[in-house]
């Protein structure tokens, strides 16, 4: 059963959530929209197309301490990091929620990642259905849709009089304010997206592991980490100790398979030395290694990498190239 929240209802609702929880919402920063913890509801940018970074940073922050090392009289004590407050991520799109679900596959698999699990269970997702499809969007080809409520706790859909409130989970139910009217109107038709063919991308990837395609594609790749850092499903991380003025922490930070040091061992051996091998690692992980482990392709079709890549390495093009090359190879 759907409810209706007027714009004022929503603002009051968010305001009350803000009293008891951290609220992470889209905020306009320069020309970007970013998910940030807000202190006032007015900071929220309601009219945005897509955020520059996905909301994954709330669950896997760019940098976080895993634990602190304390020494008293030579006795070492490891103090685990805490998740102190409940939170709400507001305004994420269906593709973002799917990204979080894909991250769950890895981080919640036993032995689960404690901080991630804790944040995940203490955070509710109040999503926003997409008003329009952007030219870089292809979520419907990747198992999601502009109005897909899966993986959300509550999904809001903007209509003329406010927002349709679709309660998805029990967790979401507990958050809905009392006294919202029932919504009896029509649910707007979601925007249409161009479908891209994604058949057999996993087997295509496997078959083309040693294809010269990768070195050619890598020619123009800069090997920056932009695609990985804007991606809602890229979750590789680095762990190191950080000490400052006697305080020692074990810190985890984002890292990307595109950087040369990513898999360089202390002894100087790196399994992937060429640009092509590193770029192939990115797509192999998404299309082959991840599905081998967790069934789904590790891409949600949000289009962020398409938009952010400084040299236009377009994942949709890579998918269609892989399929074409496979067809050529199999001689059909």
């Amino acid at each position: 059963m759907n409810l209706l929240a007027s714009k004022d209802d929503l603002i009051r609702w968010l305001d009350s959530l803000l009293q008891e929880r951290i609220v992470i919402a889209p905020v306009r920063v320069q020309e970007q929209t970013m998910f940030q913890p807000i202190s006032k509801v007015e900071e929220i940018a309601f009219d945005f197309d897509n955020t520059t970074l996905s909301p994954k940073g709330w669950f896997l922050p760019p940098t976080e301490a895993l634990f602190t090392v304390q020494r008293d009289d030579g006795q070492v004590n490891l103090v685990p990091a805490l998740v102190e407050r409940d939170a709400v991520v507001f305004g994420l799109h269906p593709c973002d929620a799917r990204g979080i679900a894909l991250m769950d596959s890895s981080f919640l698999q036993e032995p689960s990642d404690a901080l991630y699990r804790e944040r995940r269970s203490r955070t509710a997702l109040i999503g926003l259905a997409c008003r329009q499809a952007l030219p870089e969007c292809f979520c419907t080809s990747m198992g999601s849709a502009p109005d897909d409520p899966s993986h959300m706790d509550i999904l809001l859909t903007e209509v003329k009089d406010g927002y349709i409130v679709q309660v998805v989970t029990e967790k979401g139910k507990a958050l809905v304010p009392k006294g919202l009217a029932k919504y009896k109107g029509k649910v707007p038709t979601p925007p249409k997206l161009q479908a891209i063919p994604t058949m057999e991308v996993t087997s295509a990837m496997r078959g083309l592991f040693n294809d010269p395609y990768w070195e050619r594609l890598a020619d123009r790749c800069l090997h920056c980490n932009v695609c990985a850092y804007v991606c809602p499903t890229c979750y590789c991380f680095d762990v190191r100790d950080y000490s400052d003025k006697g305080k020692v922490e074990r810190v985890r930070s984002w890292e990307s398979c595109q950087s040369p040091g990513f898999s360089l061992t202390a002894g100087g051996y790196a399994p992937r030395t060429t640009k092509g091998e590193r770029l192939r690692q990115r797509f192999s992980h998404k299309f082959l290694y991840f599905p081998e482990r967790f069934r789904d392709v590790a891409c949600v079709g949000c289009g962020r990498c398409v938009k952010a890549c400084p040299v236009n390495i377009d994942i949709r093009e890579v998918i269609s190239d892989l399929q074409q090359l496979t067809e050529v190879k199999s001689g059909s």
Partner: protein
Amino acid sequence: MAPESPFIPCLATLKMAIQLTPDIKLLSVELEDPDIRASFDYKPGQFALLSAFGEGEAPFGIVSLPQQRDGLEFAVRRIGTVTRALQELEPGDTLGVRGPFGNWFPLEDYEGKNIIIIGGGIGMAPLRPVINRILERRDNYQELLIINGARTPQDLVFQSEFPTWTKAPRTRLELTVDRGDEQWKGRVALVPDVVKELAPSPDNAIAIICGPPIMIRFTLAKLRNLGFKDNQIVTTLEAKMKCGLGKCARCNIGEKYVCQDGPVFTLEQISQFLEQP
């Protein structure tokens, strides 16, 4: 509330450190918690992540034998910041241990076979418990050939155990170095060339290799020339890893994670994805 994090190591005390070679130390480590110590089950080939607090964490093969729970042994070569900090620890100092992780050598499956063990430099470390386990159950195996190579005679690890190894029945230890010195009377040759020269038969045999990537690469080629099939060649791989849990996603060889699916692989399992065949 503090969640139970798999990233938090068990505290341990350094019991003893023995200088094996100019840059390799054997660390004997005791877990502080007696319950964890008693339940720390591991098998030859498994590894653990050692923490030098303030510097970081790195993976090391456990080189002691499984029944030895009060003194887990690790051979640590000084190569970077973490290994240097580990080597600088004094007996009594605290370090962290996470593990055991990964798979192990299925030594029971190798019973009744000829075993060829080929190690280069610090690569001998994970093979030491394999050798010692086979020697414990010597009758269950056929011939044992150990080829141990190092850059110089000084760099040969576990020299104090050589007499035990050579005295064991049906066991042959072949040492080789890249560069000899005045005292060295033995072989001066590269490991792959020694393999070629000794030409072990692939019949009913298993070859277990560990060493620097370049040694592994050329030794694999020689073994294949001798007629070894990819399922007769077993190796244990080193990879940079940050979690040991299959989450940081960097230690993969193709779709296999070294930390979870490995570190022990047959060549058959990974040849498709060997990035530098």
